[in-house]
């Protein structure tokens, strides 16, 4: 079971945009195959970067407003937010090392 908490259209501003920590958001959908592959990677990242990054997931079917606002097309898309701004993103079922190196770029 995933350890990564859900974020929704209603909570996105508070949980992501106003977060003190940088945030990784996994934009996923229930019938997306590669999302199943990336979810365990995101889980591991959440544990390894605890205290450095907040890690959340957003179901694009249930929260279309946020997905549209950030121009989500291909799923899964992993976006990094810092200080209320989107600063980076990776798409598809990326290996953990790729995701980790992307996160490392945005650590202080």
């Amino acid at each position, binding site marked *: 079971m995933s350890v990564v908490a859900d974020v929704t259209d209603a909570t996105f501003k508070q949980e992501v945009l106003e977060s003190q920590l940088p945030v990784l958001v996994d934009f996923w*959908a229930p*019938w997306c*195959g*590669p999302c*199943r592959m990336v979810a365990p990677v995101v889980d591991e990242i959440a544990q390894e970067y605890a205290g450095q990054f907040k890690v959340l997931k957003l179901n694009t079917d*249930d929260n279309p407003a946020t997905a*549209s606002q950030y121009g989500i097309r291909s799923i*899964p898309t992993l976006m990094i937010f810092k200080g209320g701004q989107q600063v980076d993103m990776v798409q*598809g079922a990326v290996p953990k090392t790729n995701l980790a190196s992307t996160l490392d770029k945005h650590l202080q």
Partner: protein
Amino acid sequence: MSTSPLSSEKNLEAMRHFSETYAQRTGTFFCLDLGVTAVVIEGLAKNKEELGAPLCPCRHYEDKAAEVSAAYWNCPCVPMRERKECHCMLFLPPENAFAGPRQDISLAEIRSHQL
């Protein structure tokens, strides 16, 4: 929001059969993790049932009905037909690190991977 948790048996079988035939015809293979294959086939069947066409389930759309009419992302999508690119990982070229040995999947296997 999801309306029906499972697609009808008819559409699921249609998309299962299409996936096998199309993989064989294009020389592509299913993912090593057949759970990926199962979820995508189920998503295609669900879209076929609800929208009338097997719209790619690995995209977010502003307007699903308009996308169905545009047909670009109806499976097999234009990138797959032109360049064998399936970002859903349903049809993988043999050199892809995630490609498995299979071009077949049974209904029982699909059902066993349902969410």
